[in-house]
C-alpha cells in the first residue's frame, strides 16, 4: 500500500488542507476558495515557505540544528541590495535590469550570511541555536545601521510589482518561484550525494564522521543554502512591500519553525521532506486566512500556533508508524 512517495505524514497534511477548505465552505462560504482569495494566500505563503525550508535543512542536519537568523538575513539582503543596486542600474531607466541586479545582490548577501552561520556551526562547532541567535542580532543590527531604522522605499517598479503579485495562468509568479525552489531542493535532497549525506549526518554525526562524511563542510553547505533561501524570501518581501525594512516579519521566526515541525521534520535531525514542508506551509496559511475571514482575534491565532507547535512536537515523540500503515486511507499526494 505504501509507495516511496506517499507516507503517513504527507497524507495527514493533505487531509488537514482538505479539512480546512471543507470547513471554510461551511464557515465563511465559497468566497474563501475563490480564485482571488487563493492567489492572495499563495502570494502570502511564499516568503514564509522559503524560510521554513531553511529551517528544515538546519533541523535535518542534526546537532540541535535550527536557523533563527532567516528573516533577519532576508531583510538584510533586501537592505543591502537596495543600497548597492543603483550603482549598476537605475529603476527609472532600466527597471528590468534593476530587478535582476537587485535579486543577484540579495542572493549574494544571503549566501555570505549563510556562510557565516555555516562557519560558526560547522567549523567553530557552536550550537546552532546560539550561533544563529547571534547572527540574527548581527544581521538586524547591520540592517538598522544601514537604514537608520526606517523603511526605504523602492517605489513602484512595474517588473518587481508584477513578480510579487501578477498571476501567470492563475499562479502568482512568487508562488511559482517558491514551488520551483522547493522542487529543486527536493531533487537535490533525494538524488544527490549531498542529500543522502545530510540525512545520515542528521541521524548520527559521530557515525557520519567515522563513515568519512566531511561533517564540517556538510554543516557549512547546509547553512549556506538556508541563507540563500532566506535571501530569496527577502527578494519576495521587497517586491511585495515595494520597500525594505529591518523589522519586517519579525513574527516569522516562530511560524517558520512551526511549519517545519508540522511537516514532520525531526528536530533531532535526520528526517524531513520538502513536499511536506510545502503542504504544511499551505495548511498554516489556509488556517491563518480562515481565521481572518472568520473575524477571529489575532491573539487567538498566536495561541493556536503555540498549541499546534506543542502538539506536533509531542506527536513526533510517539511513533505509531507501524500502526499507521494499516490505518491511513491512501490519498493522492498534492504538490
Amino acid at each position, binding site marked *: 500500500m505504501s509507495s516511496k512517495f506517499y507516507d503517513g505524514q504527507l497524507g495527514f497534511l493533505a487531509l488537514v488542507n482538505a*479539512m480546512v477548505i471543507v470547513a471554510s465552505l461551511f*464557515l*465563511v462560504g465559497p468566497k474563501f476558495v475563490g480564485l482571488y482569495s487563493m492567489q492572495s494566500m499563495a502570494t502570502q505563503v511564499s516568503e514564509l515557505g522559503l524560510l521554513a525550508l531553511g529551517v528544515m535543512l538546519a533541523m535535518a542536519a542534526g546537532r540541535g540544528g535550527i536557523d533563527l537568523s532567516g528573516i533577519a538575513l532576508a531583510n538584510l539582503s533586501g537592505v543591502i541590495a537596495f543600497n548597492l543596486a543603483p550603482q549598476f542600474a537605475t529603476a527609472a531607466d532600466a527597471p528590468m535590469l534593476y530587478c535582476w541586479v537587485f535579486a543577484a545582490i540579495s542572493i549574494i548577501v544571503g549566501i555570505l550570511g549563510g556562510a557565516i552561520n555555516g562557519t560558526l556551526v560547522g567549523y567553530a562547532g557552536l550550537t546552532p541555536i546560539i550561533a544563529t541567535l547571534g547572527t540574527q542580532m548581527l544581521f538586524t543590527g547591520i540592517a538598522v545601521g544601514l537604514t537608520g531604522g526606517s523603511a526605504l522605499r523602492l517605489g513602484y517598479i512595474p517588473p518587481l510589482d508584477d513578480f510579487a*503579485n501578477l498571476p501567470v495562468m492563475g499562479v502568482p509568479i512568487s508562488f511559482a518561484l517558491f514551488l520551483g525552489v522547493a522542487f529543486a531542493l527536493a531533487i537535490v535532497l533525494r538524488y544527490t550525494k549531498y542529500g543522502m549525506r545530510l540525512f545520515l549526518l542528521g541521524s548520527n554525526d559521530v557515525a557520519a564522521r567515522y563513515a568519512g562524511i566531511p561533517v564540517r563542510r556538510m554543516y557549512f553547505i547546509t547553512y549556506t543554502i538556508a541563507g540563500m533561501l532566506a535571501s530569496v524570501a527577502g527578494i519576495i518581501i521587497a517586491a*511585495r512591500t515595494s520597500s525594505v525594512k529591518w523589522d519586517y*516579519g519579525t*513574527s516569522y521566526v516562530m511560524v517558520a519553525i512551526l511549519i517545519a515541525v508540522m511537516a514532520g521534520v525531526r528536530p533531532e535531525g535526520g528526517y524531513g521532506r520538502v513536499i511536506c514542508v510545502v503542504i504544511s506551509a499551505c495548511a498554516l496559511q489556509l488556517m491563518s486566512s480562515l481565521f481572518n475571514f*472568520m473575524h477571529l482575534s489575532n*491573539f487567538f491565532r498566536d495561541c493556536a500556533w503555540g498549541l499546534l507547535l506543542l502538539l506536533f512536537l509531542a506527536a513526533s515523540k510517539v511513533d505509531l508508524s507501524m500502526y499507521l500503515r494499516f490505518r491511513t486511507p491512501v490519498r493522492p499526494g498534492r504538490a
Partner: protein
Amino acid sequence: MGHSKLLLAGVSALAMVCIGLPAAAADKEIVTVVKVTGENWFTRMAEGVDKYGADTDGITARQVGPAKADAAQQTAIIQDLIAQDVDAITIVPMDPSALEGVLRRAMKRGIVITTHEADNLQNTQVDMEAFDNHEFGAHFAEQIVECMGEEGQWTSFVGSLGSLTHVQWADGGEEYAAKFPGMELVSPKNESFNDANRAYEIAKEILRTYPDIKGFQGGSAIDVIGIGRAVEEAGLEDRTCVIGLGLPKDTGPYLETGAVDSIAFWDPLDAGYVMNILTKMTVTGEEIKDGMDLGVQGYNNVKVSAGPGEGIIVRGQAWVDVDAANYKEYPF
C-alpha cells in the same frame, strides 16, 4: 502518529464549526485596521469604531489588528480583507511604504481605501490627520509663551531629527514664539530618541547650562515625562512651564505635582470615528469639501488638500488639552 493527529485535526475542525460567524446583512462593511491590538491607544480607537457602527444605519464597522506590531502581519490581514471583498478598509499603517502595493491592488478591485497618520502614502483615497503639524506645534508654543509671561529662555525636544512630525511641531512652535521678542530659544530640538531616561538626562544638562530656563516643549510622548522628572528633582515645578505631547495615564503623576503643566494629544476615539465617517462618504460618493463640519469636536472645520498620490488629505484641529484637572477622564 496517525491517531493523535487525526484526533487533533478533528478537534480543531469541530472548534472552528462551534465558533461560527455572525452573518452580515447587506450592510456596507467598513473595516478599520490598526497597528496592533491590545494597546490602550487602539482599544480606545475601537470604541470610536464601534460607536460609529452603532450610530450609523447601513454600515457594519469593525476593527482588526495584528497581535504583534509587525508590518508583515498587518499586510496579511489587509490581503485577507481584500479577498473577502469588504466594501472599504481604513488603515492606521504600521509602515506606510510597505502597504503601497497591496493598497494599489485593493483599489483596483474597487475597495475604498482610507488611512490615518500616513500623509506620505500614495495609494489612498483619503488620508485623515487629526491636525496640521505646524499648527499643533504653534499651539504648544502659545501655551508656553502665555505661561512664561512672554519672556525668558525656552527649548524644544524631538523624538529624533528623523521623525518628521516631531520636527514639524518644533518648527511650528519656534515660528510662533519668534513673534515675541522676549522669548529666547536655546539649544532647540534636543533628541530624546523616544527614551524617557534620555529626555531626563538632557533636561538635567539643560537646567545646568541655562539655570534661568523657564519653558520646555516636549516632542515624543515620553519627553514630558523625562523633563518632568528633571524639573521635579530640581524643585522647579512652579517656575518652569513644561508642555508637550503626552498620554494622560503616563503623565498623570507629573501633572499632579505640577512638574508638567499641560499635555496635548489627539483622541483615538474621535480619530476612529472620523476615519469611518470619511470612509463612508467615499463609499457613497459624497464629496469631502474644505471647511466641512464632520460633527465631531475638533473636526468642525476640516482642511482638505491634495495628497502625494491621487487622494486627498483631510486635517482637523483635533488636539485635546489636558492638565491636572481633567487627565483622569482619559483612560489611556
